[in-house]
């Protein structure tokens, strides 16, 4: 079942490639704006890089959140999922995973290129990629709750960022913290394992809360 829902959402993403690309280009543009606003001084940029990339990743994953359930809501397929004999949490987990593959993973893959723009040393680049790799799924999982709660509301897109961004703060702190720690020559494993812990906790609870929110929103 999980396979079907993931397959379906990926198929839809392939049919709507532009949606995926928009998220990615947004990420690239936001990161590229910073040198233009603070000046091209490499030392400054290098210290800013982890924070800038992480904030941009947060905003980019925010962009696509709104689409997570709203299309399915409008054409009635979400109703069908809710009355499927499968558990809704499981379907939500599948959708979240597909959402991450489509909107989170491209950011992870693009991050090293952007890190080079900021002259990050190569081991800092790999820490950045690892932190994004375990951090962005958490963004999708928590974001799904916000997307489910704001389903079908006026101005849902802005509202979802208001709800979800404060909850992203721990991920932001430890994600960019890991890269900074690596650059300062401190041990960064603790940061990464904390993000890993967030990932596990949100894997267990977020789909369940999202399913619950969907029921509230569709009632």
């Amino acid at each position, binding site marked *: 079942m999980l396979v079907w829902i993931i397959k379906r959402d990926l198929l839809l993403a392939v049919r709507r490639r532009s949606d995926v690309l928009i998220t990615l280009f947004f990420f690239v543009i936001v990161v590229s704006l910073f040198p233009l606003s603070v000046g091209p001084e490499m030392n400054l940029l290098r210290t800013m890089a982890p924070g800038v990339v992480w904030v941009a990743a947060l905003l980019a994953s925010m962009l696509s959140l709104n689409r997570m359930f709203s299309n399915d809501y409008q054409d009635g397929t979400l109703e069908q999922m809710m009355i499927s004999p499968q558990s809704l949490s499981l379907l939500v987990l599948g959708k979240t995973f597909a959402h991450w593959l489509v909107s989170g993973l491209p950011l992870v893959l693009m991050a090293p290129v952007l890190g080079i723009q900021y002259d990050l040393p190569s081991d800092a680049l790999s820490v950045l990629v690892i932190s994004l790799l375990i951090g962005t799924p958490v963004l999708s999982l928590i974001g799904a*709750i916000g997307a489910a*709660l*704001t389903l079908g*509301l*006026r*101005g*849902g897109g802005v*509202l979802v960022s*208001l*709800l979800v*961004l*404060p*909850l992203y*703060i*721990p991920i932001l*702190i*430890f994600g960019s*913290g890991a890269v900074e*720690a690596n650059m300062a020559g401190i041990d960064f494993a603790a940061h990464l394992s904390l993000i890993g812990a*967030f990932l596990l906790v949100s894997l267990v609870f977020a789909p369940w*809360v999202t399913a*619950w*929110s969907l029921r*509230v*929103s569709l*009632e």
Partner: protein
Amino acid sequence: MSINWYKYSSPSSFYSLAGKMIPVFAVLAAILLVSGLYVGFFVAPTDFQQGEAYRIIFIHVPAAWMSMFLYVVMAIWAGIGLAFNTRLSSMMATAIAPTGAMFTFLALWTGSLWGKPMWGTWWVWDARLTSELILLFLYIGFMSLQAAIDDPRRADKAGAIIALVGVVNIPIIYFSVQWWNTLHQGASVSVNQAPAMASTMLTGMLIMVFAAWMYAIAVILKRVRVIILEREGHTAWVAELQKEGIA
């Protein structure tokens, strides 16, 4: 003596009960506020390190405490409303949010006023101030979500979910900010770490905390009454009430 508590869980009887309770709490709040401010500003001695500027803690500390307590209380009411489908508890949660946000804002404002003479800037990314700021975002999120939903039942439930998610996340956020803060700044003097307090200072602060509680209860009850009227507008007892009001 046994009181029929269930009687007060119906909006109509709670409406009249709240009406009787509001003046009591309002008067208590006023008395406590005046005496607390008097103790704080005239009786408590000048702090030898911070001079007169420390006196802002008489407002800042109660506001900061209230902001956090009220979020938890709000989440509890919202959770009860979600679990037992009791309308009144959800209304309580909705009524608490603006007061909580007000206290959060007050804590931030007084914190920044205190920061100017202490640190020389209006804003410092101190762990506690930053957490207060995030708390304000959480309150705003809760209120905007409820405001965006037209159907009150859905608004109650959706608000409850986000409040519960928030209350679970607050310790995590607080801990992360703490970690972030020590990593970047080292220990800084915090607003709430008032050095060894004189007993009159403590008395003044406690009185102010009680004043804040009384004020919050009075205002929240008032707001619940308004929400009850809004939501129960179609029922017979509200129509009755309106007739009496006009007559």
